[in-house]
């Protein structure tokens, strides 16, 4: 037997990227804007979705990604919009969503009249950033309680996203955190990143998010 070396030069995630690219195109052809929300657990993604649903009505829908439970989907469904829950427990408890699972989800959803599809990715700032889910916009949600240093600690999530939503700004009077330092650190990692500051609880700054979606 002879030893042989084969030059491969193939992207490891090419199968995922292919489906992601097809999804991006198919949804654009249907006139649907697909936004992938990534964040640490408890950043306020679901509360943002609830308020977005109340303000924009039923032309949006949400795919919820969680390792376990349907709690987030139940919360958002109460706001009167279509939701779909992906539990990755069935896929080995994966810490991120992949494009094939999004494809399966939308094949089961009724997208008639839908203008914006949101994915609430699994709550962590590491793994979801590695996988293209086919979104037109990747966004990071960062709550003010998480500290100024997160963009520097999780650079890939901030580098692969074009929008950062700084959430829970109603809590700023009770914290030592300086929002300008958060924005400075975002600029270090991704100078072109758009930033929207809001509180989904009080509605402060929320109009900027709604205008971004329109």
């Amino acid at each position, binding site marked *: 037997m002879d*030893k*042989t070396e084969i030059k491969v030069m*193939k992207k490891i995630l090419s199968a995922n990227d292919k489906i992601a690219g097809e999804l991006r195109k198919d949804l654009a052809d249907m006139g649907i804007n697909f936004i992938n929300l990534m964040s640490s657990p408890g950043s306020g993604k679901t509360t943002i979705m609830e308020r977005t649903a109340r303000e924009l009505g039923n032309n949006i829908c949400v795919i919820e990604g969680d390792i376990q439970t349907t709690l987030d989907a139940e919360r958002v469904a109460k706001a009167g919009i279509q939701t779909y829950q992906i539990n990755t427990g069935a896929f080995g408890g994966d810490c991120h969503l992949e494009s094939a699972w999004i494809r399966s989800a939308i094949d089961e959803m009724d997208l008639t009249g839908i203008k914006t599809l949101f994915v609430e990715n699994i709550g962590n700032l590491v793994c979801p950033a590695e996988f293209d889910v086919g979104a037109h916009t990747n966004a990071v949600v960062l709550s003010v309680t998480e500290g100024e240093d997160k963009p520097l600690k999780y650079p890939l999530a901030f580098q692969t996203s074009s929008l950062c939503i700084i959430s829970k700004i109603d809590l700023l009077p009770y914290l030592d955190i300086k929002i300008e330092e958060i924005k400075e650190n975002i600029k270090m990692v991704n100078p072109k990143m758009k930033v929207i500051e809001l509180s989904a609880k009080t509605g402060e700054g929320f109009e900027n998010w709604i205008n971004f979606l329109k």
Partner: protein
Amino acid sequence: MHEGAIVHSLLEIAKDIRIKEELNEITEVKIVVGKFHQIVEEVMIANFDFMKTEYSGFDNAILLMTEKEVSVKCEDCKHEFTIDEPIFMCPKCDSFNTELISGKELYIETIEGMKE
């Protein structure tokens, strides 16, 4: 633990290549990973050694990982530089008008195997 999903994908590609190239066994898979990925070499190797047992012809296969520097280009003064920290500021002109030019690679470079 995204390394598990990444190793699964690379084993699937390597399996197809083993069949296509009619290799009796795979002895080495060499991958290139840009440092911007949050991928830990030891975790990749541990996953590879565990998951390869599900594939035939991989008993003696090893995973080799080469890391690639994060390189950035300044759009203002055209200076190209590497960074160790995620700070996209040009060291020459202090501009933030910069673009990542390498560091996000994640691909299989070569596969080595035995053939009759």
